[in-house]
């Protein structure tokens, strides 16, 4: 092989345009001649450098349009994690210059961190001022919080339970400390949290055990000891020890008046629990009413509602009146409480092998996938929502990447063309929507595939997460599903190899729906509004 031929063959190899015979000749040459290998490396490096150079000039193409997420306060520690991830991504992008739309960028997250000292354990008719609506189970953001109206129950990491009645302004300073600017607060302090304190303008209450309440207004603080003992440390005055049944009203000018403790004047934990149970039951009824109507939607191919099935039965009926999909067969998944707390109304897919097997005949031009899930954590590279067996032509796959992005694809071709550079499918990723602070919260996730508008839209809790046009060469107009699994991925069933990939969702699902059409943003928002617990 002369040098000219050698360099031509190397270029052909790098272009992916080499015959098998020439490949073998080149391999033989590489095996014996170090200079040939160096030339190979030089030419590879040149190609990479040219790509970098060319990439800098034209970085156009399809773009993912990120929609403004429902305003969420960035918590400093998250920002730090984000910075690391961004740094990682920057390493990948800047140095490789190879990020094309649709490429899989798998940024591995460092050890997950979250920020806060307390979670919302329950709330009734709450309106939060100057911060987005906080979901049950959400971490309480740092800083001063304003509850305009309603009642919220907070669980501090120290074990203290606090019920706050709006209108109130307060701040959780640490798991053992809280500030109240105004409003009514009732705290139950377990033994490990003795020494818990609440600051007001007039002074400071230090709990010595069990339960007390505070009513704070512009220039007056009332302390009521409902059980156990507290210390009252007024500003510039000696500490007073107060016992069960005692109460004090303390004014800004340092005058104290003794009162009788009034437990009835403050909403307690059990009162709130009753309220919450009643509210949840009424929301659940509302959803049942709406979902009955939804079941008659002619576009509905399947709706599986774990709550409607007989708990002892491993069959999950398809409740869609016109639905052509089969009933579901529950495998391994255990029954747990649904999103309204109703026992047995949801399936927990965390046991390995968990899935619901379904069969969906037919072909669809457009589809909507919609589900209610509670995710414990995303601990796999792929965390399944709905996947067809194997991955055959025209089949959709719907899952969540380990880094928190939603993944949707429809297989267009059998194989990626090594020579042509074509991929077998285009993957529609949402921006990252999940992080550890959402763990344990019920979320409604939906994705619509619209072949007419050539658009894929991802939704979280009724709001658009992102939209991406379907590239013309990846458009599939006859989406087919066949045998599929909810919350897991099944390789073809006749295979005899017992080893399998672990892709089950580490979390619960209480509802899954498939429509033979792309629902509108308004319809998705309505389903969320009626379906949220």
């Amino acid at each position, binding site marked *: 092989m002369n040098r000219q031929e050698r*360099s*031509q063959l190397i*270029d052909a*190899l*790098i*272009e*992916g*345009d*080499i015959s*098998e015979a020439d*490949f073998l000749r080149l*391999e033989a040459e*590489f*095996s014996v001649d*170090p200079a040939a*290998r*160096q030339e*190979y*490396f*030089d*030419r*590879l*490096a*040149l*190609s*990479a*450098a*040219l*790509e*970098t*150079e*060319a*990439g800098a*000039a*034209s970085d156009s193409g399809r773009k993912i349009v990120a929609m403004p997420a429902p305003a969420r306060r960035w918590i*400093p*520690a998250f*920002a*730090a994690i984000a*910075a*690391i991830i961004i*740094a*990682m991504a920057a*390493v*990948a992008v800047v*140095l*490789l210059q*190879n990020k094309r739309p649709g*490429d*899989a960028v*798998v*940024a*591995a997250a460092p050890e997950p961190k979250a920020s806060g000292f307390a979670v919302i354990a329950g709330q009734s008719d709450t309106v939060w001022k100057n911060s987005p609506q906080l979901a049950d189970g959400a971490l309480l953001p740092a800083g001063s919080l304003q509850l305009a109206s309603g009642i919220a129950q907070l669980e501090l990491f120290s074990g203290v339970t606090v019920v706050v009645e709006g209108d109130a302004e307060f701040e959780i300073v640490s798991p053992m400390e809280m500030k109240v600017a105004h409003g009514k607060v009732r705290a139950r302090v377990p033994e490990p949290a003795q020494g818990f304190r609440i600051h007001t303008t007039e002074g400071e209450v230090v709990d010595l055990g069990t339960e007390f309440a505070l009513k704070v207004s512009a220039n007056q603080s009332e302390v009521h000891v409902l059980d156990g003992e507290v210390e009252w440390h007024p500003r510039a005055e000696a500490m007073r020890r107060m016992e069960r049944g005692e109460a004090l009203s303390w004014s800004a000018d340092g005058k104290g008046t003794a009162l009788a403790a009034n437990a009835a004047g403050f909403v307690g934990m059990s009162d709130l629990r009753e309220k919450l149970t009643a509210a949840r039951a009424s929301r659940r009824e509302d959803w049942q009413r709406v979902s009955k109507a939804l079941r008659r939607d002619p576009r509905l191919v399947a709706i599986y509602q774990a709550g409607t099935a007989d708990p002892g039965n491993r069959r999950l009926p398809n409740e869609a009146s016109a639905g052509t999909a089969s009933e579901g067969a529950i495998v391994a998944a255990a029954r747990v409480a649904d999103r309204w707390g109703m026992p047995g109304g949801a399936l927990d897919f965390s046991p390995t092998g968990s899935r619901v097997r379904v069969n969906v005949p037919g072909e669809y031009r457009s589809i909507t996938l919609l589900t209610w899930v509670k995710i414990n954590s995303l601990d796999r590279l792929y965390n399944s929502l709905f996947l067809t067996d194997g991955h055959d032509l025209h089949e959709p796959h719907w899952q969540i990447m380990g880094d928190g992005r939603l993944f949707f694809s429809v297989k267009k071709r059998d*194989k*990626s*063309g*090594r*020579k*042509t*550079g074509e991929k077998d499918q285009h993957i529609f990723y949402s921006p990252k929507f999940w992080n550890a602070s959402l763990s344990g919260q019920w979320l409604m996730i939906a994705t619509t595939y619209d072949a007419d508008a050539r658009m894929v839209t991802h939704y979280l809790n009724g709001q658009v997460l992102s939209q991406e046009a379907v590239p013309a060469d990846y458009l599939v107009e006859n989406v087919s599903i066949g045998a599929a699994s909810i919350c897991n991925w099944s390789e073809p069933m006749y295979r005899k190899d017992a080893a399998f990939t672990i892709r089950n969702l580490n979390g619960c699902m209480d509802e899954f729906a498939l429509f033979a059409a792309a629902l509108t943003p308004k319809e998705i928002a309505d389903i969320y509004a009626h379906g949220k617990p």
Partner: protein
Amino acid sequence: MQPPDDNPNESAFVALLTGIQMPLRLYVQSLLPGDPAAKDVAQQANATLWQKRDDFAPGTNFKAWAFSVARYEVLTYRKKQARDARLVFSEELEETFAEEIAARGDGAEQQHEALKRCLEKLRPQDRELLMHRYAKSGTLHDFAAQAGRSVGGLKVTLHRLRNALLECMQKQTRAQEGLS
């Protein structure tokens, strides 16, 4: 709040990882010549390296470790593709590639500077052709169709331009070495 560089191990690891991006990519591409997915595989190798960062023993050969992880990613990728293995180099050759690419001088920056200077020396239409070709991941056939040229003719032109660039860059590098 903890700024990321509060963790010296992590920032040191990022620095190490940053330092081997070019050789890592080169190595992965040498194993998957002509495969547009090579970059994805290299990215995946980065992600895996980051996940396994605690496995790396500081003071040992980072490049060698990273390359072994990258090779494993390539094998996984090939398995997943389940394609015929016609165009796969022998295992020994792949190992030789790893050793030799690891031993190559890093000089990515000087090389890139040299490339820029050498690109300037090309005729504008040639430069444009190269930029156009490398901005797209499409095939030579698609590109030829777009450019309204024959595939054979385009191949010859691109090959000639690459040869010219390589020769020019080697001269530049030698001149630099001569100066220093």
